[in-house]
């Protein structure tokens, strides 16, 4: 579906010109085929809010109102690879400019790292730790973890499993965005939806004029019927060889069914359908526009007011809260040039959250910040993840990985929160592919190396490149 349009643009009024390009492509897309791989399926906007075109515009502003405007624009227009998605008849979302990431060096590093990852250990499903066996707390949506910590679900079952149960209550979770793709929004949406399903109050802040409009794009839970059929499907697929072990899986399933009456700890979400209206109505969701505040004092006050609803008493939890902050250091915010204000805000947010029953979930674009600032933020994070889009037509990667066609992007886990313990969590794999199952629910999978064609005898080549790539991998991730 890649369309290339030659344009000669000055940089002075890019936004309006991009709107024009959007419209052109929109009409072009209506006649052409759907994109082969939508990076994001967005639920339709709610009827109450008009299809929010300003959202798109501000997303564009994020890219183009910054001092790096020239380089970004250059990249966007040189490569001329655009991907737009038709979400519904009435709204068009600017979802992605898929580029071979940022520059030749980085994409090479990514490939090397993938090679490295693919040869590493692969998490096998049958021997992964069974987390459903952990004692569940009396409050729905919370679960006790080791070292006196409490978990809260991320909204993606696979991510919970990878992290050992979910996000720690009282932790600051940071997502490093891919500036050229909105994959972090997938994680943000499921995180917020999961909170709403569990009846947990949510504070949402984003650098747009009307953040409440975003709530209409939150996904709803997947119908449980589908869920079960999916489970059995997966089991049958998994146990084609080790069929004797099926009885153990059966036990597991019974256990799950017992808990079906209660609210699930972690739901699966259907990214195509919007969340039920009654969940986002009322005042359980507080919205805050980061554009309105010239300094962060106001936002800090509303955060501390929100957090004060969930004081921490030992052993007696009544409810938990979630704070979701989208694109915190976005360049269109007034406070963007005050690095130390942002850092001290995050530091105080971290200490406030730490002494309460809340989880703060924050995304930021590391490439728009100075390297030292970005490192400081990474140190401040309790749990640190990053998302990356993958280029659409990368022959080399496609031969390297199985299931490349279905991948939306890559999720890397850099840091898992370490509360009350000094032992680092070493994961089997740190990079996972993000996939959509049945074009609805998000799944994370280990990267698997594609079988090597025996006749070409390239297996030596692969292993050699793997050895040499280890350094590049360590640098990149």
């Amino acid at each position, binding site marked *: 579906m890649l369309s290339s349009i030659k344009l000669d643009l000055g940089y002075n009024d890019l936004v309006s010109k991009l709107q024009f390009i959007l419209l052109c492509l929109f009409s072009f897309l209506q006649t052409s085929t759907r994109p082969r791989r939508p990076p994001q399926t967005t639920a339709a906007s709610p009827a109450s809010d008009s299809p929010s075109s300003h959202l798109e515009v501000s997303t564009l502003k994020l890219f183009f109102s910054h001092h790096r405007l020239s380089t970004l624009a250059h990249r966007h227009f040189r490569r001329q690879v655009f991907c737009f998605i038709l979400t519904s008849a009435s709204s068009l979302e600017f979802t992605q400019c898929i580029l071979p990431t940022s520059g030749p060096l980085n994409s090479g590093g990514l490939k090397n790292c993938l090679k490295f990852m693919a040869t590493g250990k692969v998490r096998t499903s049958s021997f992964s730790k069974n987390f459903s066996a952990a004692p569940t707390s009396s409050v729905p949506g919370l679960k006790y973890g080791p070292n006196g910590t409490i978990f809260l679900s991320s909204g993606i079952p696979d991510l919970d499993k990878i992290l050992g149960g979910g996000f720690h209550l009282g932790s600051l979770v940071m997502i490093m965005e891919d500036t050229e793709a909105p994959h972090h929004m997938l994680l943000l949406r499921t995180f917020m939806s999961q909170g709403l399903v569990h009846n947990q109050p949510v504070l949402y802040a984003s650098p747009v004029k009307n953040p409440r409009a975003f709530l209409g794009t939150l996904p709803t839970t997947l119908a449980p019927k589908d869920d079960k059929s999916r489970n059995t499907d997966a089991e049958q697929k998994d146990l084609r060889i080790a069929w004797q072990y099926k009885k153990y899986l059966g036990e597991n399933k019974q256990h799950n069914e017992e808990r079906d009456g209660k609210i699930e700890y972690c739901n699966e979400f259907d990214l195509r359908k919007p969340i039920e209206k009654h969940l986002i109505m009322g005042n359980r969701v507080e919205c805050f526009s980061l554009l309105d505040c010239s300094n962060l004092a106001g936002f800090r006050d509303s955060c501390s007011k929100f957090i004060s609803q969930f004081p921490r008493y030992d052993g007696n939890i009544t409810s938990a809260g979630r704070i979701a902050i989208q694109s915190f250091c976005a360049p269109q915010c007034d406070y963007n040039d005050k690095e130390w204000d942002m*850092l*001290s805000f995050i530091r105080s947010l971290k200490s406030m959250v730490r002494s309460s029953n809340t989880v703060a979930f924050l995304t930021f674009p590391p490439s728009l910040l100075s*390297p030292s600032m970005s490192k400081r933020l990474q140190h401040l994070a309790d749990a640190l993840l990053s998302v990356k889009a993958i280029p659409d037509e990368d022959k080399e990667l496609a031969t390297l990985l199985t299931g490349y066609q279905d991948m939306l992007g890559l999720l890397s886990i850099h840091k898992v929160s370490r*509360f*009350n313990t000094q032992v680092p969590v070493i994961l089997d794999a740190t990079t996972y592919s993000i996939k959509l199952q049945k074009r609805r629910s998000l799944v994370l999978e280990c990267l698997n190396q594609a079988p090597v064609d025996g006749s070409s005898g390239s297996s030596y080549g692969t292993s050699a490149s793997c050895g040499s790539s280890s350094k590049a991998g360590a640098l990149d991730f």
Partner: protein
Amino acid sequence: MNRPVSLLDEALGFDDGESNSRQRRVGRVVLVEDCVETSGAFVLHHLIKRFLSPKHSSSDSVVIIVAFAQPFSHYDRILRKMGCNLAVQRENKRLIFFDMLMLECPDDEGVEGGLIALYGNIHKAVEANSINKNITIIIDDISLLEVAANGSTKDVLNFMHYCHTLTTQFGCTIITVIHEDIYSNGDEFTLPIQMEYLADITLKAEPLVTGLAADIHGQLTVLNKGGCEGLGRMKGKIRNFHYRVKENSVDYFYPGSRS
């Protein structure tokens, strides 16, 4: 009793309390450098335990923790697993804990109220315990202290120099952590250079170049400048070994010697 001294203790070269009372009075500065991938916090925990447990040092040592990074409960839980009860030690006045998680000093008068007041408190605590006691000041960590001082490197360095005077005046040992990768992007940063200059012992925790592994959590490079008393000691010796962090202790071993 006859447990072999771990590689870390050997590299640090801290004397056991009973061996020589004269050397105990010599203050030192220990700097731990770490990065996002590997945290150096385990060195702090090890040293807290070392200075508080009666086995290693005489019972009159006092530890002052200035915590910017973690709340008391976090240290308490970790040290409890290592066999050292911080809550009890705090009641016995052997541990003084300054919770600085919410400290903010936005501008000049903020520094007056913040860092200078903090130094005043530390000084008071040191002075009160100075008679015949080993005092250890742990600052966790300098990078966050810098954020609390709103990026004013000058104030942070002043604070650290003031603390440094305590090492000569009262023979305190100062242990700090700095996140080294923040300053490694080519720009001129005075803070890490100055801190390395102040430090007698620099420990650097890094991941292995091949990435993280379950058996080896990273490598530790210890540079011991030898201090002023280095009679017959190897000066400026660099040691390098791998480590594995466990709940109650840390294993140290030379590269490749892991069976």
